[in-house]
């Protein structure tokens, strides 16, 4: 009698547990290069939002542009049993160990935004970096009437993403005889740096017509320099990211153009791609997110309320 009761009890427990096991929560890991960049903050919001809708748990690890930390973080996530990983690698080759670790654990590891050279990269959810650079350059050439001197306030040295965008930009500029690049400096993605370098660029080249800024923070700093040199409206500034302060800058006329990379949608797309992959769907190696050029003409449609 006792044995039968035990058997029934065990069966009940197993049957009760079965649906729970079948619906075991999917946990995924996410590793982003920075916690303090508005772009990545928005990307994270997108990821969190979509993951919540799907009922997923998300484990985040912080790297603060420290490659070793990113590799360690990914290994920790794998050890904690994630089903898949979304990563924006700090560097295209230096964190390949993270991809190797994921491949060894037979987990999909999908790059979002920045990409890696690792053969173990499952997919890349990307923006078409070179094309963005080309589009910004073409817009600039149009805005200044095809002639003039340009200053480049480029992104951090060693970042392939920013380098690709810059390459697209300089490629178009080089083809255009009327435009010349007179200032080209790498630097941090900060407003302070934009202000200082723009001040110096304007002094060295008083007839500057355009400034290329690698992101909106730099562009806003540069716009202050342009304003205090009394050149508002005479020097066209382009930025990147389309974060709210940047969009407001376009509305105010401080910045001529920014590129909405729509990081929130990007994050959501990353989650959707991972979800699809886990279900067995097939994707092309690169899944592109559409970028949107935002200038005075269409800024009202994208300004956050």
């Amino acid at each position, binding site marked *: 009698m006792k044995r039968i009761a035990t058997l029934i009890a065990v069966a009940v427990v197993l049957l009760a547990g079965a649906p729970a096991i079948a619906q075991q929560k999917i946990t995924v890991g996410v590793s982003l290069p920075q*916690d303090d960049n508005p772009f990545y*903050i928005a990307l994270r919001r997108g990821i969190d939002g979509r993951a919540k809708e799907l009922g997923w748990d998300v484990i985040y690890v912080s790297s603060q542009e420290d490659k070793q930390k990113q590799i360690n973080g990914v290994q920790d996530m794998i050890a904690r049993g994630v089903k898949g990983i979304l990563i924006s690698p700090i560097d295209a080759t230096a964190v390949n160990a993270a991809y190797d670790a994921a491949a060894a654990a037979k987990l999909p590891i999908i790059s979002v935004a920045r990409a890696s050279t690792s053969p173990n990269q499952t997919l890349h959810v990307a923006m078409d970096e070179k094309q963005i650079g080309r589009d910004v350059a073409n817009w600039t050439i149009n805005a200044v009437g095809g002639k003039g001197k340009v200053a480049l306030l480029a992104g951090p040295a060693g970042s392939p993403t920013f380098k690709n965008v810059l390459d697209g930009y300089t490629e178009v500029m080089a083809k255009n005889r009327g435009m010349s690049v007179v200032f080209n400096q790498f630097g941090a993605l900060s407003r302070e740096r934009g202000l200082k370098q723009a001040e110096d660029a304007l002094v060295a080249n008083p007839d500057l017509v355009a400034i290329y800024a690698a992101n909106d923070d730099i562009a806003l*700093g540069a716009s202050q320099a342009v304003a205090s040199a009394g050149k508002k409206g005479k020097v066209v500034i382009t930025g990147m990211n389309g974060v709210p302060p940047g969009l407001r800058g376009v509305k105010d006329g401080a910045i001529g153009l920014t590129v909405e990379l729509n990081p929130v949608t990007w994050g959501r797309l990353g989650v959707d791609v991972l979800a699809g992959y886990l279900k067995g769907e097939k994707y092309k190696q690169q899944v592109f997110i559409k970028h949107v050029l935002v200038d005075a003409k269409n800024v009202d449609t994208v300004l956050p309320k």
Partner: protein
Amino acid sequence: MNKDSFVRQIPLITLLALGAAIALATDRFLTPLNLTNVLVQASVITVVAMGMTFVILGGGFDLSVGSTVALSGCVAAAAMMKAGIAAGVAAGVGVGALVGLVNGLVVTVLGVNPFIATLGSMVMVRGIVYLFTGSEQVPLDGTLPKPFLDFGVERFLGVHYLVWLPAVLLVALSWVLAKTPYGRGVYATGGGREAAFLSGIHVDRVITSTYVWCGALSGVAGVMLASRLQSGQPTAGEFYELTAIAAVVLGGTALQGGEGKLYKTVIGVFIMVVLGNGMNLLNVSSYWQRVAVGLVIIAAAAADQLRHRR
């Protein structure tokens, strides 16, 4: 001029020679616009470097100034949005002084080596800034009060307010260091703790006070920067501690403490800023700029060693 006083003038000579070299290389350097820019660009870091001088004179070291600048700027901006400019400025400078006080107490009461103590607070304060701001600029929406923003752009008698402030501070603080018993106590403490203690100076109090000065001045710099950048930026102040220390060394103040002057640090700041400005005007590649700055810092530290070898 004998050899000793010539050696003491090396920083000023270096600055003038550097300026002359750049002026020869580009005619944009000596334009009024550029010279004004250089003054404004130097203004914030000058205040930080003066605070660093206080600490170094007393025999200490402060690596947390950059993080404190960021914290003060963000706290000031946040407080200003809620309670007005005066409250904002007071909060910014106050929080800087508080960080300085904590640094000073850790060094004197807990006896932690200043390098380590302020290295720790540098990292911790930066973390606090990110926690406080959620990594976003302050204010995220809206703008700081107009008079405060005007302070960052307007001039008085042709000179920017941002430049008047460090000039006034330089005069006032130099007087404090040179003409008050407190100032003499700072030099004495830096020159020899034992002797200072035995002659009745409250060495621990003096040392702590130098850190409070440094923190408060970093607070002032943070508020100035918030005005210049029209916002509190959590990423502000990066590498300020290195620039400030380099300026102190370039100016000829000994790193061991006990001797030096604020105006010398200001010369050191200008050497750094003029160098950077010149390289930008000449469009020197960013990579070479870093090599140049690193070399200048090492050369200055080496010269400091040779000059002060006892």
